[in-house]
């Protein structure tokens, strides 16, 4: 047992570290201070959390693009992609090593991950050669940003329940309906979308998958304001949006299969998201005073801290187990499936408890809040979203129960009935 890199791994790590040292600024444990190089505030893993209106958001986007270009030139932007599309042609372990190194630096995040991690790989499997040549290299360099148009108001956890209409009209498709929770739709150049092309087919059989230009007429994008006050997601409305059949990925009615390719490529979450964890609250307890002195000296506080420590490090060491498998060229076991489930609740608990420790100052959530820079107030709101986005706690538990433990699937009412005959409530 050891934590050492192999010779090749060490060489790659040095390459990554040299690049980061030369081009980015190190992160500190409690830091939401904007820096000159990277004014974007990476609070609690929220992408593009930028206060200060449209101009600031535009500036942050431009800076992210500059960063992405540098990263792409150095070869680190798409480590797993083949070289022919501008990738590094690397291995999962190299991706892990780069993420580990980048985690220590304040760099823009939340703009390119969906494209490079999920949509690009989908195009590699299902796209035509000319599409791949045209779109993939610019996805890596950040010149073109992509978004994923999957969820709908009536199809969240039950993604295959989407209703977006796709009707064929000659060589074109006409899209009508609404998507929701679309990260980055407001700055994306292109998107990938699943729509229902045959409502009389079974739920999973009547879907078709397309890519499209986000500036196509008939698309309207409205940001969703979240409880954190920021807007990371959008509603996207489609009114007679016409796209050519050549932008279809996979066959008519094969959309679910293509969507699964996208979803299977959710990147291995081995680079910890920057966020609230044991280390942040441990630092805070050394500053905050409770009735009998410093919080860290209080035995109730210490008991709770121990719980978070073992969760936090338990996750880290679980990642080490998965990384070990990757390092040996094997497929990791299912152990990492616990990661987001544990992380989100831990963040919520840690945030809420830190506010308790601040006592009445905990209620202050002001821009100039001197107490630990709003870190825990922000976390309090962000964590509530994190327990839902990317698979709710409940869906994740189902996945662990069914796919990892092999427990029976829930009884389902939607397997054998045509989609347009399924009960759907008000929506």
């Amino acid at each position, binding site marked *: *047992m050891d934590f050492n*890199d192999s010779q090749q791994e060490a060489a790659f790590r040095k390459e990554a570290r040299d690049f980061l040292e030369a081009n980015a600024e190190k992160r500190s444990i409690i830091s939401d201070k904007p820096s000159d190089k990277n004014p974007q505030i990476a609070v609690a893993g929220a992408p593009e959390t930028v206060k200060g209106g449209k101009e600031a958001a535009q500036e942050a986007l431009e800076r992210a693009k500059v960063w992405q270009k540098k990263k792409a030139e150095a070869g680190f932007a798409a480590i797993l992609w083949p070289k022919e599309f501008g990738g590094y042609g690397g291995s999962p372990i190299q991706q892990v090593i780069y993420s580990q190194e980048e985690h220590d630096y304040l760099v823009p995040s939340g703009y390119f991950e969906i494209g490079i991690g999920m949509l690009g790989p989908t195009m590699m499997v299902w796209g035509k050669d000319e599409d791949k040549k045209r779109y993939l290299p610019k996805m890596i360099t950040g010149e073109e940003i992509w978004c994923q148009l999957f969820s709908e108001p009536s199809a969240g956890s039950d993604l295959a329940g989407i209703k977006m209409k796709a009707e064929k009209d000659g060589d074109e498709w006409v899209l009508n309906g609404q998507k929701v929770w679309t990260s980055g739709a407001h700055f994306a150049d292109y998107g990938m979308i699943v729509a229902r092309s045959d409502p009389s087919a079974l739920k999973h059989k009547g879907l078709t998958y397309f890519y499209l230009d986000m500036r196509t007429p008939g698309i309207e994008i409205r940001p969703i304001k979240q409880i954190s006050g920021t807007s990371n997601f959008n509603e996207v409305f489609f009114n007679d949006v016409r796209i050519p059949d050549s932008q279809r990925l996979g066959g008519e009615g094969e959309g679910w299969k293509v969507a699964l390719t996208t979803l299977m490529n959710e990147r291995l979450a081995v680079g910890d998201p920057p966020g609230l964890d044991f280390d942040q609250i441990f630092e805070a307890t050394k500053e905050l005073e409770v009735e009998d002195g410093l919080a*860290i000296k209080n*035995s109730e506080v210490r008991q709770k801290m121990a719980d978070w420590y*073992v969760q936090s490090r338990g996750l880290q060491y679980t990642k*080490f187990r998965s990384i*070990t498998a990757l390092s040996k060229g094997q497929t990791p076991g299912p152990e990492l499936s616990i990661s987001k489930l544990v992380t989100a609740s831990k963040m919520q608990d840690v945030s809420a408890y830190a506010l308790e420790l601040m006592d009445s100052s905990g209620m202050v959530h002001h821009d100039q809040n001197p107490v630990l820079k709003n870190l825990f107030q922000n976390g309090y709101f962000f964590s509530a979203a994190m327990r839902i986005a990317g698979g709710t706690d409940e869906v994740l*538990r189902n996945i662990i129960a069914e796919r990892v433990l092999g*427990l029976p699937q829930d009884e389902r009412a939607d397997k054998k009935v045509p989609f347009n005959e399924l009960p759907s409530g008000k929506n």
Partner: protein
Amino acid sequence: MNFDFSDDQKLLRDQARKFLFDKCDRKSVRTILDDDQLHYHKELWSQISEMGWTGTAIPEKYGGLGLGMLELCVIAEELGRSLAPTPFSSSIYLFAEFIKNYGSEDQKKKFLPLIASGEKIGTFALSETNGTPKPSNVRTKFTSGKINGYKSPVSDGESADYLIIAANSDDKGNRNSLSLYIVDLNQNGVSKKSLETIDPTRPACSINFENVEAELLGEQGMAWDMTENILNRAAVLYSFEQVGGAQVSLDEAKKYSMERFAFGRQIGSFQALKHKMADMYVKIELARSNAYYGAWALSTDSNELPVAAAGARVSASDAFNYAAKENIQIHGGVGFTWDYDCHLFYRRSKLLSLNIGSTRQWKENLISNLEKRNIV
């Protein structure tokens, strides 16, 4: 990165699992549960001793196999899975580790071969009163070469031939007054009294000492430091036993939930139960990973050991306690009958989480060691 056991260690695990599956079935466990006169499974003990498990991490020159602590972790997990009713933890994780780490050459030569062969059993006793042991609670004394005092509860005390105890070597009554002594329990002046425990397959007794001969172990006045270190080492091994027990609790809950039907369905298809089992899985994976880290620290003599051991211990206690109690819940009514095995794990989980200090105490250890590490 190589954060895993080696192929050889995995082979050892498979062999141990198969052996215990054959030789330590639930019927064997219950022979100890159901009979007040039996303190451990003698036949099993001699079999595992013959295979050398008791000497796994004892050097060859003292009669052991000369393997490492990682191999001992592997064995511990399997003993935990099978609920083996033996004094393995007392004799090997505690007594042998004390002698190995702090004994003189003579003491090692005298005791380790007897322990490695399983011929003799050793244990360790600190506690004398209710609550968290602390130096001021130790009243047992060593004067003019004799021990006088009382220890309770002493795990596996009735089966043990040797005991390591903390006793005051002066009258100041502080941490540095305490020294460790090795006591031969087969002598006049030692009186044992059986105590029922919440898990009779892991028995305990109280022991009274009246002018009992004893020899010093390690440096005088260093009992507390030595004990902390050995308990850290033992905590990692305990955490593997706990992970083993937790995993079997989950496996059995899962099996039952797929065989039992209610409302026309397998009860394992209900989300309320699936989510419970998913939570068991989460806690077990966290505990396993923390235990691995403990194993690494233990096997490399890392100065991370105090933090790693406490983390492993806290996480494993949480996982096993949760898995064992929810296993009963998933079984419903039969879960709390004597006939079903759920209670064997429920008993064992709580006993293991108390045996070398409560979870509360280990959480406190964890944070105070983190503070120390931060200062360094």
